[in-house]
C-alpha cells in the first residue's frame, strides 16, 4: 500500500481527471447530453431525466407530478432538483451534481477495494488474493468506463441508486452496519429492487462487524438491523407523502416496476415479452418474472455464504440482466464490482468471448435501434435480438465469475486439483 499522502494525491488527480473529462464533454459537446438522455439504452421510464423534468414542471406548478403518467420516479427527487436552478437555463449545476454523485460512488468503490474483502472475507481467504488491483485502479476503471460516462452524461437518475448501493457496501465492509442499512434503504426507496440485496448485505455486515462490539448471533443481528431498513423506508415514504400530499406515488413508482405498465423498449428482456403476450397471461408471467428475479437471492446467499461480497456482485449482474427496466447504468455498476475479483481472472474461461459479445452488442444495439425507429427499414425484432445478445454477454460474465469464484474456493479444499481441466463426468 502507498503512503497516505501519495494516496490522497492520486485520489485527487483521478477525481479531477474524471470530473474534467465529464465537464469537458458537457461544455464542448452541448448537444450530446440531450441526445444521450433520449437514448433507450440509458434512460428507462423509471430513470429518465426527461421524465424527471416533466415531473418537476408539474410539481413546481402545484400539480401532482404523477398526473399524466409520465413520471415514475421517487417523489424526493423533486425537492432536490427544484432546489437546483433550472436545468435548461443553468445546466451546469445539474452537471456538477451528477459528477459529484459519480465521484461519491468511486470513493465508495475505492473503500471496498482497499478493504480487501474480495480476496479474504471473514470465512474464506483466497490463495490468489495477492494478485489484486488497488482502489485507485478500480475507481479509475469505474470512472472511465464508457457506460458510466454515458450514464452520467445522460443524467439518468439511476446514478443515485448506484451511489447508494456502493455506499451501503462500503459501509458494510468498514464495519458500520447501521449506516449500511440506511444507505440500502435509500437505494430501495429510489429503485425498489435493491431491497433484494438485503440478505447478502446483512451477511456482509455480520461478517465485518468490529470485533470490540461484535454480535455473535446472526439472528439477533438480523432482528436489530432489518427493522432499521424498514424504519428508514417508512420515514422516507412518510416524507414523500408530505411532499406530494397523497399515496399516489406508490402505484406510480413501485407499481410501474411491479406491473410493467410502461412498455418503452429498453436493453432488458421484459418489454418485448410483455408486448407480445395475451393479456390473460400477463399477471401470471409478471409473477413468474419477479419470482425468477428474486429467487437468486436465497440460493446464492446460501451457496457462497463464505463470500457475501461475491453474492452482492453476482446479484447486481443478475439484476442488470433480468430486472424490469435495466439500462447500461446497471451494467456499469456490475462492471465496477467485477474488477474487485482480479485474483480469480486467470481462472475465468470466457473473458475474451464475454468482452467481444458485450462490445458487439453495444455497437449493434444502437445501429439496429436506428434501423427500426429512424430508417424504418428494420423492425422491433432487430433491436430485441440485440438485447438478447447483450443479456447473453452479461449472463456469461455472471456465470464465468461464479465459476471462477467457486473454483477458487474448491482449489483450497482440493489443492491437488489446482490447474487441472474441468470435466463433467
Amino acid at each position: 500500500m502507498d503512503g497516505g499522502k501519495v494516496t490522497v494525491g492520486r485520489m485527487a488527480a483521478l477525481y479531477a481527471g474524471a470530473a474534467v473529462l465529464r465537464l469537458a464533454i458537457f461544455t464542448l459537446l452541448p448537444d450530446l447530453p440531450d441526445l444521450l438522455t433520449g437514448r433507450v439504452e440509458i434512460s428507462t421510464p423509471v430513470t429518465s431525466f426527461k421524465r424527471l423534468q416533466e415531473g418537476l414542471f408539474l410539481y413546481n406548478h402545484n400539480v401532482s407530478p404523477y398526473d399524466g403518467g409520465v413520471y415514475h420516479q421517487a417523489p424526493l427527487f423533486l425537492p432536490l432538483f427544484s432546489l437546483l436552478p433550472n436545468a435548461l437555463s443553468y445546466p451546469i449545476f445539474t452537471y456538477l451534481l451528477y459528477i459529484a454523485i459519480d465521484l461519491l460512488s468511486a470513493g465508495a468503490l475505492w473503500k471496498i477495494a482497499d478493504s480487501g474483502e474480495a480476496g479474504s472475507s471473514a470465512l474464506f481467504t483466497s490463495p490468489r488474493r495477492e494478485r489484486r488491483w488497488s482502489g485507485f485502479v478500480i475507481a479509475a476503471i469505474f470512472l472511465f468506463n464508457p457506460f458510466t460516462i454515458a450514464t452520467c452524461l445522460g443524467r439518468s437518475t439511476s446514478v443515485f441508486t448506484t451511489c447508494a448501493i456502493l455506499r451501503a457496501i462500503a459501509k458494510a465492509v468498514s464495519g458500520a452496519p447501521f449506516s449500511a442499512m440506511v444507505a440500502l434503504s435509500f437505494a430501495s426507496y429510489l429503485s425498489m429492487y435493491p431491497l433484494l440485496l438485503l440478505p447478502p448485505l446483512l451477511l456482509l455486515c455480520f461478517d465485518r462487524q468490529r470485533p470490540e462490539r461484535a454480535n455473535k448471533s446472526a439472528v439477533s443481528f438480523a432482528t436489530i438491523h432489518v427493522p432499521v431498513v424498514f424504519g428508514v423506508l417508512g420515514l422516507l415514504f412518510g416524507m414523500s407523502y408530505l411532499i406530494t400530499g397523497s399515496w399516489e406515488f406508490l402505484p406510480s413508482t413501485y407499481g410501474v416496476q411491479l406491473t410493467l405498465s410502461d412498455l418503452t423498449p429498453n436493453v432488458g428482456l421484459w418489454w418485448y415479452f410483455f408486448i407480445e403476450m395475451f393479456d390473460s397471461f400477463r399477471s401470471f408471467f409478471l409473477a413468474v418474472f419477479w419470482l425468477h428475479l428474486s429467487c437468486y437471492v436465497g440460493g446464492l446467499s446460501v451457496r457462497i455464504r463464505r463470500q457475501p461480497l461475491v453474492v452482492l456482485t453476482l446479484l447486481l449482474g443478475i439484476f442488470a440482466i433480468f430486472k424490469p427496466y435495466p439500462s447500461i447504468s446497471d451494467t456499469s455498476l456490475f462492471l465496477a464490482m467485477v474488477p474487485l475479483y482480479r485474483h480469480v481472472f486467470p481462472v475465468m474461461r470466457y473473458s475474451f468471448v464475454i468482452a467481444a459479445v458485450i462490445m458487439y452488442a453495444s455497437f449493434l444495439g444502437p445501429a439496429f435501434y436506428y434501423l427500426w425507429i429512424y430508417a424504418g427499414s428494420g423492425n422491433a425484432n432487430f433491436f430485441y435480438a440485440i438485447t438478447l445478445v447483450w443479456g447473453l454477454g452479461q449472463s456469461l460474465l455472471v456465470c464465468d465469475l461464479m465459476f471462477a469464484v467457486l473454483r477458487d474456493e474448491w482449489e483450497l479444499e482440493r489443492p491437488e486439483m489446482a490447474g487441472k481441466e474441468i470435466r463433467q463426468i
Partner: protein
Amino acid sequence: MPRLLSSALALRRDPRILKIPPYLSLLCILVGAVWLFLLPLNEYSRRTYISENALLPGQVHTYFGGSDQNVFRAYKQEVNSLVGKSNVEINDKLESIVKGLGLKTARQNFTYNAAGRTYAGENLYAILQAPRGDATEAIVLVAAWENAKHEVNKNGIPLVLTLARYFKRWSLWSKDIIILLSPDSIAGPQAWVDAYHDAHDSSRVASLPIKSGALQGAIAIDYVQEHRFKSVHIVYDGVNGQLPNLDLINSVVNIAGGQMGMGVALQEMWNHNDKYPDRLRTMLRGMLKQGLGLASGPHSSFIPYHVDAVTLQPFGEGWQDEMAMGRVVEGTFRSLNNLLEHLHQSFFFYLLMHRERFVSIGTYLPSAMLVAANFTIMAIFLWMKSGQPEEVPAASTPESSDKDTAAPTAERNLLLPLAVVTLSGSLSAIPLYIFNHVPESALTPSFYFFLVINTLLPIAISIVSTQLFTPTLQQFHLIKSFSLLLLGMFLSSLATLNFSLAMLIGLLSAPLSFVKPYSSPVARIVGFIILNLTSPPAVLLASAAVWGLNVGDILREAAVAWHVTGTYSAVVVWCVWWPAWLAGCVCVLGKPIHQEGKVKKA
C-alpha cells in the same frame, strides 16, 4: 451437450486447431468476394415486382400534353431570360409565376460553411393544397436551378411550372403537392428538408413559414438537354448509402418503360444488354456510390428522413419530348397519390443490377458479414495464441512465472496493447478534424503533409514503444487482436447500415489480418510497404489517379458532404479503418524481444 462442450473446450488446446484460423479467415474473404460476383447471375438475383398494390402504376390515363406544350414554351422563354441572374432575382420572377397559378408560396434562406467556402442561397417553394385532402400528407416535386454538375436546369424548371399549373386544374389530389425550386442540387434541398422536419440549425438555415403534412414521396427533375430524348435515367442513391423504397423505382420503371414506352437506365449505364458484365457493372457502380455516401442529386437529402425520392434525368437522342417527361411525372404522382400508407411493403436494402433485376439484403449481406467475420476470427485466434505459454519460460512475462497455479494459459499483459489501440483510436480524431475544417486551398498541401506523417508515424510509435516498454511477441499479438476485434465489430455493425461501405473497407483492410511481426528486416520492410500501399491516404490517392480527379477536389467534396448532408463516410475511414491500419503497421514494424528462431516459429 455438456460433454460436447467440454470436449470442445479440450479441443481448443489442440495445436492442430490453432493452425486453422488464418486459412479460415482467408477463406472467409475469398468466399465473401466471390459471393459478390455471383449475385448478377439469374440464380441469385430476382426480378423486381410491385409490392404495394395501392400504387397501381401505369393504370391511369395521363392527360398532360396538348395546349400545355404552349404553356411550357412560354415558361421556358421566361426561364431562359433569367439565366445568369442572381438567385433573388430568379426567385422573384418564379415566385410571381407560381403565385399567378394560385399557389401559396414562401422562401427560405440558408447558409452552409464548408472547406472555407460559403454555400448560401434561397429556396422557393409553393404548396398546392389538395382538393380532396386534409393537409396531413404531401408529395414533393423538386427542380433545382442547377443540377449536380452545375448545368442550368433549362427544361426542368419550366416543366415543373407547367406541371404545377396542370396539377392545379385537377380535383383528384388527395395529398398536397409541394413544388420546391432550389438554387442548387445539394445544399438547397438539404436545408429545406431539414427545416421541414424542424431538424435544422436555425442560425444557418431559416425555418419554413408555411408547411404541409408528412412527406410521402419526392420526385426531382433534372432536365438539362435541349433536344428530344430517348430514355430516363433514374438516380436513387441517398445520403450515407440509404436507398428509397424499391416500389418507387419500380413504379417509375413501370410508368416510363411500360406505359410511355421509353427506356429506363440506372447508374449511368446508358446501354444495358441485361447480360452478366453489364449487370455486374451496374451493381458495382451502385455499390461504389452507396459506399461513398455522397448526395447524388436533389432527391438524396429526402431519403434520410424516410421520404422516398428519386431524380429523373432524360438522356440520349430519341423522339420523346418534354410532354412525355411530364406524363411520366404525372403518372408517378397519380400512383403516389393512391398510397394509403407510407411506402413500406417493398425493400429498403437492395442492389439493382438492371431496371428489372435486383438482389435483396438476405442474399448479399453474407458477403460483407463474411469479410467482417474474418477479422473477428483472427482476433479470437490471436487471443488464444497469446494465451499459450511460450516454450522458453525465461522469455515469458514476469507474471506468468508464478508457480502456485500453473494454469494452462499464460497470464496476458493487457496494459500496453490496450494503450496502443486506444492511442491509435484517439489519434484518428486529428485527420478527421483537419480534413473537415481546413480551407479549400490548404486541403491538398495538408493531404500530402499527412501522407508523409502517416508513413512516419508507425515507425515513430514502434521505435518509442520498443525503447520504452520492450514489448513481447504476446503483446504484439494482443495489439493486433484488439484492433482486429474492433475493426470486425465496427464493420459488421456498419454492414447493416451501409453494406457497400463495410464491404469496401473490409476488402481494403483485408491485408491487416495476415501481417505479423516479422523477424527478418526484409520481410518487415516488404510488409510495411504492402501496408502503406493499402493505407487510407494511399487508396485515396490511387482512386483519384484512376478516375482522373484532383485530390483537393475529392477532399473538398468530402468536407462539403460532411458539413451539409452529414455524410459519415469520413468517420468510418478515419476512425475505423485508419486506427486499425496504424495498429497493423505498429505490429509489422515491431521487434519483439526474442531470439530470432523463436519469432519465426510463432
